């Protein structure tokens, strides 16, 4: 028997695994495909290829679901949440890792404890609080609450990494006349870049994909995020599969596009994040 050269073997095995991957992703491909069909073609045969590129579904779905408004809201909330929660987590972790003795331990444990509190445990209290603090139907309310939920994970992760940063480096910076703020932002912050990526990527995905908090906090149409908007759109268009499928496709595209562009960071960020649990 001939022994296959290792490169042919790699190619054949690679194609095999790629085909398995395509089968795994088939549900998403099928949705994309059906987004280009008129309603009656979807109903007669779901798995047939579209006969022509029928783009009406997209234009109609975009109008009725007010897609760009929800897209804008999601971008605003996500970017602000990532910036606010990553920054506050980092400076807090910096403070905790530089404090000594009991007080440092106390704050660390106090923040880590947040990891075991499920969101569902506080959701009723949050909905009451949001009304009292006039945060319902505001985007900043989402940003503040998200940042609060995420800080536990962020601080735990940053502290783990900051403990490994050699103190000599900071001492040298201080001797050179760097104040505390500059030492923190210009010497230490660049050193923890991998952790910042991890934390930032996770916060981005959590915030982008969140459903429960925005659905509790926001009832106004103009302030819906993509996921909540799609959920509401489904109830409104139950029988019209073509519209819902086009809306679903539109809603999935941004995050898939973001993944393709930032694949390297997302993958390394997620794995590193979980390993540090």
């Amino acid at each position, binding site marked *: 028997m001939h022994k296959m050269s290792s490169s042919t073997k790699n190619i054949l095995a690679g194609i095999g695994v790629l085909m398995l991957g395509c089968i795994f992703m088939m549900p998403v491909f099928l949705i994309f495909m059906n987004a280009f069909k008129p309603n009656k073609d979807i109903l007669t045969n779901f798995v047939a290829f579209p006969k022509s590129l029928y783009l009406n579904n997209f234009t109609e779905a975009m109008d009725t679901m007010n897609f760009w408004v929800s897209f804008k809201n999601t971008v605003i909330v996500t970017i602000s949440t990532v910036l606010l929660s990553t920054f506050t987590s980092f400076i807090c972790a910096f403070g905790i890792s530089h404090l000594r003795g009991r007080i440092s331990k106390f704050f660390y444990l106090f923040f880590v404890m947040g990891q075991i509190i499920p969101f569902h445990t506080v959701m*009723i209290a949050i909905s009451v609080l949001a009304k009292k603090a006039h945060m319902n139907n505001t985007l900043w309310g989402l940003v503040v609450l998200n940042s609060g939920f995420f800080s536990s994970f962020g601080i735990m992760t940053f502290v783990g990494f900051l403990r490994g940063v050699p103190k000599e480096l900071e001492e040298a910076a201080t001797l050179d006349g760097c104040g505390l703020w500059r030492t923190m932002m210009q010497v230490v912050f660049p050193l923890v870049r991998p952790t910042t990526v991890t934390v930032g990527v996770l916060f981005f995905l959590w915030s982008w994909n969140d459903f429960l908090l925005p659905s509790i906090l926001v009832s106004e149409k103009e302030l819906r995020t993509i996921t909540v908007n799609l959920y509401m759109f489904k109830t409104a268009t139950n029988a019209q599969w073509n519209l819902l499928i086009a809306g679903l496709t539109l809603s999935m595209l941004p995050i898939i596009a973001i993944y393709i562009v930032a694949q390297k960071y997302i993958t390394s960020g997620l794995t590193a994040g979980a390993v540090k649990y």
Partner: protein
Amino acid sequence: MSDLLYKKYKKYYLMLILPALFLYVFSLVGPLIFGTIPSSFYDWNIIEGSRNFVGFNNYIRIFEDKNFINSIIFTTKLALFTIIGTNILAFAIALMINEKLFAKSVSRAMFFIPNIISGIMVSFVWTFIFTGAIPSVAKHLGMESIANISWFGTPNMSALAVIIVSIWQSTGFLMMLYIAGLQTIPDDVIEASKLDGCTGFKKIFYIQVPLLMPTITINLFVSIASAFKAFDIPLALTAGGPAKSTQTVALNIYNDAFGAFRSGYASAKSVILFLIVALITVIQLRITRKREVEA
């Protein structure tokens, strides 16, 4: 750092903690201690505005609440099947992708993308697969019995649907963790085992699995914790139906709180959820820490 400098900077260190402390207490610790826990002792309807102290009554009622007990049973089932299914599938895929392959990063992305799409969207995708694609294919192949399956009509099929979608969504993430874990196994260990005749399944079960115990620990922890918080998929896929058979604990609490507005009672339930999640986490960490093998 010198003690003098520490004394000088100490108050600044404390100030750096403040912004995150405010956010954290405001949105998580405060609502838990001043909202959820006290509310759980009241008969409180958020719409009617009535609020009467009832002591432990809410907690006593929970044990007679068939719907809640059923939701705990369903959540446990969902957790078990999803954990087993996801971990086996993710490990198998990771083993394939760990080899040198053509177009490896594209394949990896295929398995991973479902994980970054929100649970609501993933559920809608599968709603069409169950009600559109599967019957369509089955009819073409002449398999009427499969075409006529009512995926959301019976408790068992609905449960199966929720399990399939949950596995499909979370496999990619665990696959990434397993790939990262497999890469930490040194090549010389694999080479040495090869010389000793340890290949194929033997290699997997005697070398790779034991050395991957730290990763498996993390994965079990991640899977169990997320199963007990499962909400988006059952809500968007089955809405807990038929007849509340696929209601998870989180969904049950949500329905009581925002559907029936029994806010005090739902708060008591959510304290129970908190205790369950905390208990699982502690047990899990204790058991698996002992079994880890150092690579």
